[in-house]
């Protein structure tokens, strides 16, 4: 479990994340939603220790994040940022192999090799593994980066807008993969999503942020309500139900 206690992050005197306290349950998909500038990505960055909070504590598996060595922490938690601009010319299998870096420091053993192959198969990249990453399409690239995270084999996977720039087919494909990761491998997935319907369809919990504070946190069913959503996004929502899943119509 990840516990956040009184997390505050300020950029040039403007607080972006304000006094956030949150308990993120294990083995679930948790979506962070909110308008632009609500502090979702910053909060995600703080949890992944890519950003240092100005105040507050992060506790992972009952241990303060600061007590972890960088290398050890990388075996527990991984993050995939929204803009994965790779300057290097690497083959798919080479990039995915770097997911094993926290364990192997570049010298791959048989376990590493197994995990790499497993990750490649999990994301259906077996046919592409010898291609260079920069030759692939957006959807394929995103799968490659996800495979790298899968190979890293951490309990907690943080994703910053994993559907950014993907079409509907590929978005659904990625979400299904995340579901499988959660179900088959017991991973905890915490992600920032912009499309409220993707959050509604695929996540177990939703945390709604507004101007740096957690407005609502709870099971998806309880959060997807017209009143709460209007409070978070400042627009009107109509909620439709289909197969016990809620779909939001906000095209007014």
């Amino acid at each position: 479990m990840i516990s956040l206690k009184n997390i505050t992050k300020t950029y040039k005197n403007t607080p972006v994340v304000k006094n956030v306290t949150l308990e993120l349950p294990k083995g679930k998909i948790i979506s962070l939603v909110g308008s632009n500038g609500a502090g979702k990505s910053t909060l995600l960055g703080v949890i992944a220790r890519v950003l240092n909070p100005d105040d507050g504590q992060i506790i992972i598996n009952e241990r303060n994040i600061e007590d972890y060595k960088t290398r050890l922490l990388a075996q527990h938690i991984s993050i995939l940022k929204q803009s994965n601009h790779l300057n290097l010319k690497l083959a798919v299998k080479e990039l995915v192999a770097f997911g094993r870096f926290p364990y192997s420091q570049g010298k791959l053993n048989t376990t590493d090799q197994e995990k790499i192959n497993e990750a490649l198969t999990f994301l259906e990249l077996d046919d592409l593994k010898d291609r260079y990453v920069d030759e692939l399409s957006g959807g394929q690239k995103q799968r490659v980066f996800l495979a790298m995270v899968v190979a890293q084999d951490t309990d907690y996977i943080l994703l910053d807008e994993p559907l950014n720039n993907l079409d509907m087919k590929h978005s659904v494909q990625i979400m299904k993969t995340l579901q499988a990761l959660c179900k088959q491998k017991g991973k905890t997935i915490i992600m920032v999503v912009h499309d409220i319907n993707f959050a509604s369809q695929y996540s177990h919990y939703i945390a709604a942020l507004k101007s740096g504070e957690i407005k609502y946190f709870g099971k998806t069913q309880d959060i997807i309500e017209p009143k709460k959503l209007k409070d978070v996004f400042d627009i009107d929502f109509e909620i439709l139900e289909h197969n016990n899943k809620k779909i939001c119509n906000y095209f007014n």
Partner: protein
Amino acid sequence: MNVIKNYNTLKLFGLAALVLVLAIVSLFIGVKNISPLQVLNWNKQEVMLLTISRFPRTIALVITGVGMSICGLIMQQITQNKFVSPTTSGSLDAAKLGILTTLIVIPQEQALVKLIVSFLVTFSASLLFIKIINNLKHKSIVFVPIVGLLFGGIINSITSFFAYKFNIVQDVGATRDMSGSWLMGDFSGILQGNYEAVYLCLPAVVITYVYASKFTVIGMGKEVSLNLGLNYSSVLNIGLLCVSLTISAIVVTVGIIPFLGLVIPNIISHFKGDNLKATLPYTALFGAAFLLVCDIIGRLIIFPFEVPIGLMIGLVGGFSFLILLIKKQ
């Protein structure tokens, strides 16, 4: 899988053999005609010439070729920019400033002290360059090396100023022309006893090889490095230390060798990709072969005189780069 691996090893051996052949050819080129037969017969005069002048020159060529190419590669990883190299980051200019400082302040000191001063100046300048580009708002692929050139220009102008002031312009060659100054790269003056500092590149080469995977991770950016549990700043500093040591050792012994650090890593990256663990041996060997070829042509073309090595690298390097660009289209 095994077949591919064997094939790659074979290619690597081929490249190593090429370097060896070129090195042997390089040994037997010169005004005094030496034939391998004379050496095998242990002809005293020829063997002496070989050990005092020809061997040191060839070894300096090989080490410089390896060192400059690897330096370029590390700088490109650290800055995440394919066009950054010792020439376009102010490193070479800083090494020059370091040598000028020693000429003015401690002219009587030994070569080693001069090397250390030069190394310190180069290392500080590299740190400053990294600091500058970290503060840049637009880190475009072209802008960063331009800033590097400007930065080098500023360092160079400081060097020029003090060189004029102390009347040692001839030595420092601060005017960037080719008029016979020893800081323009030149292998003709290499003799036993004055080139040994170049061996200081070797530890840097070994460290680079050990750290190859880490340098690749650094090339993916600070956040990716953090995510993979890598101590970004310590690896960055180790990289800069290696680069500074190599560059100052080379500049002190043979002078400034331009372009090499830019051209070689880019050619290898084009064909082999950027996984340093796999490509580093190619970069090193290809750098050595390339420099040997340039030197051999430069020595033969207007025999018994020599075309400056910098000019040869510019010609051959520029030409091959052009071919690469045209083929890419």
